[in-house]
């Protein structure tokens, strides 16, 4: 009886001792279990984003409307087609000279900027789609004061101004070359200026693309520092833009933009030459080059290097 008692006690003691040893021994090993590293920072980021190899195409229009005008039926001052390829995180910004001479469906031939004045965003979209064989998914139109207010609300825009810009008469631009933070008025002047540029409206469209890329750069920088700032940008934009985009679309685009490398977006301007057409000073687009550009960019939104036209401001001192 005593031996059995002793045996039972020994077994119990061995089990308990083993349990203790096991539990003591588990701590150091567990401390290095995968997925947890004390002292090491862990980050997690996820936002929904556009998917697919088919490009999303947005027409961005800067309306020349003055306060009191019908913004959606005024001459457009700047025109950009923004192609985004979600899968490849790449895209192209195509500036269209506002004086480009085109057929406006149902309204004969005229400068492209008159399409908005004549038939609003729908006719503008129709005109561009017909002329360039591209499908536009969304349009967004802002005004001088909307653009200015938007940039002031986000606290200004850091831009690398590529050259000295000075036009006290028309746009009022007065900027030295180099990286600087522009307030709304300065950025608007940069966007509007064509008189101080050798390439005139071609140069203006290219600067418009530069401002879009600068905005994307700043947006990403702010998002990475404070993701919640995304709402400030959306609020600043949506209260000042007329658009076919819904809030869901804007959110999805904004989320997608957070991971869009700026370096994988090309900024080009359709080539052409200034001519007098129909008694008006207009732009005759280089038909062959324009065809080549849209044949290249339309399928996937990405522009091949070999088809990139020369920068209109390449020779700007």
């Amino acid at each position: 009886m005593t031996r059995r008692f002793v045996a039972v006690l020994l077994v119990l003691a061995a089990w308990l001792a083993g349990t203790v040893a096991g539990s003591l021994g588990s701590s150091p090993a567990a401390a290095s279990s995968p997925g947890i590293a004390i002292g090491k920072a862990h980050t997690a980021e996820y936002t929904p984003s556009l998917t697919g190899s088919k490009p999303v195409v947005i027409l961005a229009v800067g309306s020349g409307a003055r306060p009191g005008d019908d913004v959606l039926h005024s001459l457009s001052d700047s025109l950009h087609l923004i192609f985004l390829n979600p899968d490849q995180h790449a895209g192209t910004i195509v500036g269209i000279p506002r004086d480009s001479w085109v057929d406006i469906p149902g309204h004969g031939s005229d400068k492209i900027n008159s399409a908005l004045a004549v038939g609003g965003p729908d006719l503008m979209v129709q005109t561009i789609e017909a002329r360039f064989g591209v499908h536009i998914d969304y349009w967004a139109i802002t005004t001088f004061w909307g653009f200015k207010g938007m940039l002031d609300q986000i606290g200004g825009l850091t831009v690398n101004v590529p050259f000295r810009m000075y036009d006290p008469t028309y746009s009022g631009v007065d900027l030295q070359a180099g990286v600087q933070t522009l307030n709304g008025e300065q950025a608007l002047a940069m966007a509007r200026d064509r008189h101080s540029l050798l390439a005139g409206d071609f140069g203006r469209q290219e600067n418009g693309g530069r401002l879009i890329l600068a905005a994307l750069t700043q947006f990403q920088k702010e998002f990475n520092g404070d993701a919640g700032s995304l709402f400030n940008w959306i609020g600043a934009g949506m209260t000042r833009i007329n658009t076919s985009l819904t809030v869901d679309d804007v959110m999805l685009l904004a989320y997608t933009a957070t991971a869009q490398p700026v370096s994988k977006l090309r900024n080009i301007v359709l080539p052409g030459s200034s001519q007098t057409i129909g008694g008006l000073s207009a732009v005759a687009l280089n038909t062959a080059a324009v065809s080549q550009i849209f044949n290249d960019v339309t399928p996937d939104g990405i522009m091949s290097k070999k088809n990139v036209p020369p920068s209109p401001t390449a020779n700007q001192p």
Partner: protein
Amino acid sequence: MATEDKTPLREAAPSASGRTPETQDRSKVARNRIIAGVVIAVVVIVAIFLLTRGDGIIGTITGDKPPVGKVNFHLKGTEFVATQPEGDVQAQKDTAKATADAVKTQLDTLFEKAYVDPGSWGDTGEIGDLFTDGAKGQLKDDIATITLGDNAGDTYDSVDPGKNSAKVRTLTDKDGNALRAAADISFTGLAKHKDGTYSAITVTGTFFFVKDGDTWRIEGYSLDRKEKPAKAPVPKGSSSPSAVAS
């Protein structure tokens, strides 16, 4: 008499030594008592150790664990971000407040399950309903940030939630309908490790919410989790803070 003639079995057994049977018997009994005493002492010491450490073996067996701490995000601010000009400001303010309250509830639930309740540590299934389908698919990859971690139970004993705060911004239309919400959060917790050491855990960043019926679900996030060694909490009754990161 017959009884007197009987020889006790022990006494009748042949003796291996030269000691007398009576002496041998006393010696065995004494030895057994010593062994039993030592074993009992070991058992008692080990039992005391097991019963008093962590949740204790009794707690483990009965499931009678200490109560799980409650997470309570303090709303530092609520604001609306208008998406249309000239809206109803009061309606948008009211919406921002109601949205912030709803989002706070989701945050409380998320961090309680993901960081504080040992029963659901590292279990993305427990928190999946708080996320949209798209975000849910990403949870496994981000488990070490969204939750205390996969197999966290191997490392940690408990996490005591500290001060937690959230600033909630709500996107609104001009009529005061909520379209999206973003919560900038700061979560802190004092983790007790299996080896008896402590660490201070902080999670900061932003959650993006979208309304799904009556529920706000997380559709995106950008989070940082940091952890550094901390001192053991000062016993209750002291006016000192419960833990200080070392």
